[in-house]
């Protein structure tokens, strides 16, 4: 029984990593780097708490608001990169700065210390509904990517936008939708972090998890299942590591446990490169598409 509790408590962090990775994954699959994950998470976290304070204290409404604000930032990212064909790296960094800065700034000016008292009601194995929603989203996206018209379209746009274009697909629209929807997921991840995990907003609450999520997309070789298992593995890794540390065990210095995904990405990309493979990266990732 105690073991079960431990496991649920470790897993409760999964939505934060999983949703963020899933959101970035969606955008990258369609060919757009989203380098603002860290900032969008922070902004989602702020938005959630903001909605909690001003819109009547419902967790669900607040989470939804976090999602919406993520979606709006995704639209801005799309407008800048797809419509104006600006460099995705530059825009990604600009928006990262802007959103992370705004989140911290607006929180302190608009909401001096909000404490979230509400908790998620419904639970199975003491895990809340967002956890199951995350599992569901992974399953859904896995199926969508493999077995639906929409999934086929997204893969085609990310791999070969020219081919998609001549097949009558509106490349910009697909990228626009994927990037915005993906950012929505990232915003939701942030909102969940602030509302449920931390029950309030703190400075630097994202603490690199956005970049970890980014790493996990690459680590998962741009496959839904890869990203899922990677996120789950990482969730366990940090959960188990803190618990073992408390219990006095350390096998790898804890500082290095948190960068296992990052190191993994370096090793994976380097070896794939050396062996002349693409490592599953969408061929048109980061490449702007213009018809003429």
């Amino acid at each position, binding site marked *: 029984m105690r073991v079960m509790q431990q496991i649920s408590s470790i897993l409760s962090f999964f939505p934060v990593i999983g949703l963020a990775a899933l959101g970035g994954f969606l955008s990258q699959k369609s060919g757009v780097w989203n380098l603002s994950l860290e900032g969008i998470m922070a902004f989602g976290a702020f938005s959630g708490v903001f909605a909690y304070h001003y819109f009547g204290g419902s967790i669900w409404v607040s989470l939804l608001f976090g999602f919406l604000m993520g979606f709006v930032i995704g639209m801005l990212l799309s407008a800048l990169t797809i419509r104006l064909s600006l460099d995705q790296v530059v825009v990604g960094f600009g928006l990262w700065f802007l959103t992370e800065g705004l989140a911290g700034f607006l929180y302190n000016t608009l909401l001096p210390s909000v404490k979230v008292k509400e908790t998620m009601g419904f639970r199975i194995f003491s895990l809340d509904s967002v956890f199951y929603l995350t599992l569901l989203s992974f399953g859904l996206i896995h*199926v969508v990517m493999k*077995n*639906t*018209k929409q999934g*086929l*379209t997204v*893969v*085609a746009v990310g*791999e*070969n936008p*020219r*081919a*998609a*274009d*001549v*097949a*009558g*697909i*509106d490349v910009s629209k697909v990228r626009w939708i994927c990037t915005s929807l993906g950012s929505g997921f990232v915003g939701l991840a942030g909102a969940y972090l602030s509302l449920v995990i931390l029950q309030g907003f703190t400075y630097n609450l994202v603490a690199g998890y956005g970049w970890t999520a980014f790493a996990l997309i690459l680590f998962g070789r741009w496959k839904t299942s890869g990203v899922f298992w990677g996120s789950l593995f990482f969730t366990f890794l940090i959960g188990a590591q803190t618990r073992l540390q408390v219990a006095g065990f350390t096998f790898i210095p804890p500082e290095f446990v948190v960068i296992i995904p990052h190191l993994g990405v370096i090793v994976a990309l380097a070896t794939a490169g050396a062996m002349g493979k693409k490592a599953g990266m*969408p*061929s048109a990732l980061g490449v702007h598409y213009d*018809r*003429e």
Partner: protein
Amino acid sequence: MRGITKRFPEVVANDHVDFDLRRGEIHSILGENGAGKTTLMNILYGLYRLDEGEIRVNGQRVSIGAPKDAIDLGIGMIHQSFTLVAGLTVLDNIILGREPTRGPFLDRERADREIIELGERFKLKVDLEARPERLSASGKQKVEILKALYQGAKVLIMDEPTSVLLPQEKEELMRALKEIAGEGFISVIFITHKLPEALEISDRITILRRGRVVDTINAGDVDVKDLARMMVGRDVLFDIERAESEKGERFLEVEGLEAFDDTGVRTLKGVSFEVRGGEILGIAGVSGNGQEELIDVIVGLRKASAGKVFINGGDATNLSPQDLRALGVGYIPEDRMGRGVMPELSIKENLILGTHSQKPFANRGPLPFENMWFTDQNHVYEYAKRLVEEYNIDTPSIEKPAGKLSGGNLQKLILAREFSRDPQLLIADKPTSGLDIGSQEFIRRKLRGKRDEGKAILLISEDLDEVLGMSDRIVIMYEGRVVNVVQAERISKEEIGEMITGLR
């Protein structure tokens, strides 16, 4: 299609072109490269917007702004470079854009059934589970045709479909196309520059030259000679003045050269020739017949898979571009923006590219080593000023980015840079394509001047007038091989036209 006009910044690609297609016919569009065939079809398929003119389908005026509109109208296009998605199976590639669904899901079983049916009807067999990157060119093409048919194409546009195929595959394609058109519902537009093919397959042929329609004729009413004449035209644009110059030493020699293109197809299949000092050797051929790979190998950007390159008698096979430059090879690339210049850097800086590390542009400054370290700005400035004047490069300042120059001036810049290195061999790849008449003349005059100085020049061009007018000898390339080497004064344009299109 009526009065179709499409202008690009420096050329009119289509000039009031009229074109009509009947149901169930195979209609070829014949023309040299750059005649505007592909542009016309890209307009019909919604990839380019037309500047003037109108398109009617079944008598209804339509506006085609994107490929989707064309597909909805029943127009399908198979591009010269295939548009298949590498990560997806053949089946998924075929249904892309018009996926059959059951509820929210893809109905792959139905798709499978339907495609196999289509394939049997038109004798097109493909492995639906394969990945397209594993297929041969002919396999990919079949997938593309099935894709278009599956999307409900009533008009099938084939852009130079045979250029990637082996002879027996070509036969197979021809049969399949006849099969498709034979049912009477689907029409085929067949773009080509190969005369025999056009004659063999077509019901009617439209000939394009320099963006204009020469004529539309029934294939039964003409023979290849007529077609060749119509395609290349009789107009000779400039006088042939070929002062005899002393033939010098054999400077470049290639022997049995073979190479693969970027997609791994062997496009250069054993080419041998030599270039002497004081001569211009023209290479005539329609692009895609191995010339690109040949040039890449000679300038060191591609490895030869077999054969040898000799420069001044020494083995220079697969040397780096640096080493080849040092041996005296100059290069005027076709892709000026992509290979010729650094668009964001100034004209001045572009002019010293390649000589930037030599005296007098570079000196060692206060450092003791012999390697050149610092750029001498004054020398560079003086030098650039002088070249800009000498080569008539029209620009307000030598500090302007090279990317701002017009095509003609850009080419003059490249010419100035290459000439000033005093190359022993100059490889000029389509040096006048896309330029205005004035710049064309200027560049030709300069090239002839170099020949008269005793340098060796390799001129690659698709403009037969240019090849004939400029060269001393002409190498004719077709499908990766040299089919003939002729003296320029002993051959007519029609004869060359027939050779480069595979007639002789």
